[in-house]
């Protein structure tokens, strides 16, 4: 049995090495979003029209569907990292902060899950389903 105090045991060991995890995740997802968002915006602007048939045909190409799924996923991840930081900064009180952070995470999974599911339905599902 060690007689060292809990503080004594961790002193001098340095950090847990994950202090920069949030920062890194934000930057890496930002870099991934440069080509993904440019692809999305330029693709939409290059379409001859934005009516139902045209957009649906475009999104049912395998490459469009694949990139759109990546876009919604990475966008949701990057956005959650950012808005979670806003809540950490501006929502006061530990309980309220935790509640808001949890609600935010559920909201993101719900919204982005629906977005990804929608793309998959267009890409894989029967026409006009």
């Amino acid at each position, binding site marked *: 049995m060690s007689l060292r105090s809990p503080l004594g045991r961790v002193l001098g060991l340095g950090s847990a090495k994950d202090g920069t995890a949030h920062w890194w995740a934000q930057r890496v997802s930002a870099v991934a979003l440069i080509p993904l968002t440019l692809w999305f915006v330029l693709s939409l602007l290059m379409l001859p029209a934005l009516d139902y048939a045209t957009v649906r045909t475009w999104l049912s190409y395998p490459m469009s569907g694949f990139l759109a799924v990546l876009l919604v996923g990475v966008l949701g991840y990057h956005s959650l990292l950012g808005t979670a930081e806003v809540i950490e900064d501006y929502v006061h009180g530990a309980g309220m902060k935790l509640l808001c952070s949890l609600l935010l995470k559920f909201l993101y999974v719900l919204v*982005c899950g629906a977005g990804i599911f929608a793309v998959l339905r267009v890409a894989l599902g029967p026409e006009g389903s």
Partner: protein
Amino acid sequence: MRPRPLSPHLSIYRWQIGNSLSILHRLTGIALAWGLIALCYWLASLAGGERSYAAAAKLFHSPVGVLFLIGWTFAFWYHFLNGVRHLFWDLGYGFERTQRHASGWFAVVGSIAVTFGVWCWIWAGHPS
């Protein structure tokens, strides 16, 4: 436990280009988070069939809808350009005062210009 130290709050800064653009970066980020909901709604309406897509299109074509879309266009391009500016800083470039100001103005003027360009392109009939 002692209360943890906090970074200085918004009200403490003098308004200048550096902190203004930083605050605008966060504001546009929050706006784009709402835009993500709109994007997913639009995708869901597309998956739902012709009628739900028509309902979404009607919403986005309304005056308020167009105003929101223009706002999101600007928010996207500003957050994009200023985000690239941040990535350059992360690599260790562009910290000089003149560089910071030049890149900051580039992000502001650039995003307004591209937003204008995108909407000219749309109103000129591509895509109709």
